[in-house]
């Protein structure tokens, strides 16, 4: 490229930003939602009630349930409830049962130990899985999302290189100046939240690096098995002896862990060969207790005698680096205020992408302001912009509306909620094709505003756990969801209002926009 390094990087930034921007917007938005996936799941399955946390009692109840209902299983898993997840989850591996790869899951009430019949819904887990699997068959979704993560990182780096005045304009934001304001805003939320953006993009690569960049592992180990064994230090379950033996009570083993690691919260407990004399129990500390994932934070006991057999091996520096990135990305350690900041920064990242897409089109639209319609390629970008942003929001809203409206007993209702998401998204695409740009934006955003703002009311009418009930009961996850939905609705309404009003007269702004676009051209070089 003859123009010079900065210009070349500006070109690269602009074009990779456009091509991957639509998908990246979806990844970022659903990823951001994922920071509250437990709360979303709580809203989506209101039948599961929160109780005061009591790990010892819960463990005992779980063991009882598993002993009565999964006595022949080869392994059991128990997830204890925590501040953000109300259910006591039990899973077991049984070759005769249905479910993914012979795995059965049940949610138990943490107080009574009885299974809860909650409506079938993927809840927050849908958005979480979508953001790295894109609802595509394994492993294609992961490859695509990881490629997008790399392009995001590239976009950040090329953006930094391109932003000549990154220090001079560090504190600069000038609203009310058309394209200049969009660029200021894009730059500002990019630069001011840069540590987060860089961390989130790079750490996404770290999370799937074993899959997308296997060469180093294969050259060194021959296959991934040895690598994972060295990394996570786990060994295979012991062979069953066929001799029945009573299991040690889990609360006793829990107490032992507490003496070894006072105050540690437990993430999950795995029991291998329950009821056999070769039984083993492994306690794994909750991911939220450390910033980095800790392979050393697990303890394995003999399931019959209760003797401590092994603790996880300590982490090397390289492992701490990789595990820190993973932990930072997941944010499991974040308490309430920090979690809200994660959410806010995620929205910021989404906005960086969104503003970029809007500017890409806006700048080129100026050249065609006089003509009646946009040339084909620009019209395509306009339609995709609308569908990928306001359309996606409509999809999200539709998921929640489906959750409340679909009959609780409907077969496969979890899949129908997902279908509603995609259906609404698809319809918004069609709408964007049929309507002129600004109107399409305005109409979709207005509908989105209504859809989100009315969610609390819909919730109250269909479950009786509306804001008045949830706040009174101190169920802040439920109330928080409703309030956030309301806030989102109000924000979308404000934006819709701006779009539906007549656009500002072009003539008056001509000198300004010419200068703005000249500046933008100088920066972007194309």
């Amino acid at each position, binding site marked *: 490229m003859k123009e010079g390094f900065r210009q070349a990087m500006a070109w*690269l930034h602009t074009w990779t930003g456009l091509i991957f921007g639509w998908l990246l917007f979806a990844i970022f938005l659903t990823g951001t939602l994922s920071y509250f996936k437990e709360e979303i799941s709580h809203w989506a399955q209101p039948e599961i009630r929160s109780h005061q946390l009591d790990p010892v009692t819960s463990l005992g109840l779980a063991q009882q349930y598993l002993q009565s209902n999964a006595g022949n299983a080869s392994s059991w898993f128990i997830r204890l409830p925590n501040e953000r997840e109300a259910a006591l989850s039990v899973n077991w591996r049984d070759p005769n049962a249905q479910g993914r790869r012979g795995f059965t899951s049940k949610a138990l009430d943490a107080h009574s130990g009885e299974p809860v019949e909650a409506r079938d819904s993927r809840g927050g887990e849908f958005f979480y899985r979508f953001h790295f699997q894109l609802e595509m068959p394994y492993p294609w979704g992961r490859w695509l999302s990881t490629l997008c993560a790399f392009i995001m990182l590239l976009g950040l780096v090329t953006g930094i290189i391109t932003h000549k005045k990154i220090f001079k304009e560090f504190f600069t934001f000038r609203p009310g100046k058309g394209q200049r304001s969009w660029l200021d805003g894009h730059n500002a939320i990019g630069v001011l939240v840069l540590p987060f953006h860089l961390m989130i993009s790079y750490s996404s690569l770290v999370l799937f690096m074993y899959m997308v960049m296997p060469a*180093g592992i294969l050259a060194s180990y021959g296959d991934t098995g040895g690598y994972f064994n060295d990394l996570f230090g786990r060994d295979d379950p012991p062979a069953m002896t066929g001799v029945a033996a009573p299991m040690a009570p889990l609360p006793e083993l829990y107490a032992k862990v507490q003496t070894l690691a006072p105050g540690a919260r437990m993430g999950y407990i795995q029991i291998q060969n329950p009821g056999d004399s070769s039984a083993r129990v492994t306690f794994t500390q909750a991911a939220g207790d450390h910033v980095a994932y800790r392979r050393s934070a697990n303890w394995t006991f003999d399931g019959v005698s209760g003797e401590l057999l092994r603790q996880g091996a300590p982490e090397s520096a390289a492992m701490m680096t990789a595990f820190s990135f993973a932990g930072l990305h997941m944010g499991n350690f974040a308490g309430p205020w920090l979690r809200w900041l994660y959410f806010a920064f995620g929205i910021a990242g989404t906005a960086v992408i969104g503003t970029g897409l809007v500017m890409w089109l806006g700048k080129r639209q100026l050249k065609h302001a006089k003509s009646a319609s946009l040339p084909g390629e620009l019209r395509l970008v306009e339609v995709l912009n609308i569908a990928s942003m306001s359309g996606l929001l409509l999809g999200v809203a539709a998921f929640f509306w489906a959750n409340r409206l679909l009959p609780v007993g409907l077969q496969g209702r979890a899949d129908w909620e997902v279908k509603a998401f995609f259906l609404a998204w698809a319809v918004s695409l069609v709408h964007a094709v049929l309507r002129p740009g600004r109107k399409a934006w305005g109409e979709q955003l207005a509908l989105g505003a209504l859809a989100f703002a009315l969610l609390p009311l819909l919730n109250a009418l269909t479950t009786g756990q509306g804001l008045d009930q949830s706040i009174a009961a101190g169920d802040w996850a439920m109330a928080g969801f409703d309030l956030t939905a309301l806030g989102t609705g109000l924000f979308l309404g404000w934006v819709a209002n701006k779009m539906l009003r007549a656009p500002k007269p072009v003539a008056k702004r001509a000198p300004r926009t010419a200068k703005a676009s000249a500046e933008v051209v100088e920066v972007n070089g194309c």
Partner: protein
Amino acid sequence: MKSKAAGLPLSYRLAVTSRSLAALLGGYVLASMTSVCIALLAPMAQVDAALTGLLSSFVFYLLAFIWCFACRSAWRAWLGVLLPSLLLGMINGLAYWMKNP
């Protein structure tokens, strides 16, 4: 880019495509080669060397990508990713052969 009207010359489009392929595919090869090199040659435990190779591979991918669009021609883009890949490939081959005689 300086080109304005809708009709961008074919040579331009081919050059961009070439650079893109060099970046995407060639860059991936280069990144993989660097991660193998580090995994085999870094003076640390096997798992740590592999990890370090993985973690740093993306930085090299990034640099390769930037090179492919910053350099003066599509040919240079390809040379810039393939030559180092070849060199690293030879080093890696030697290292691998020495580890597994």
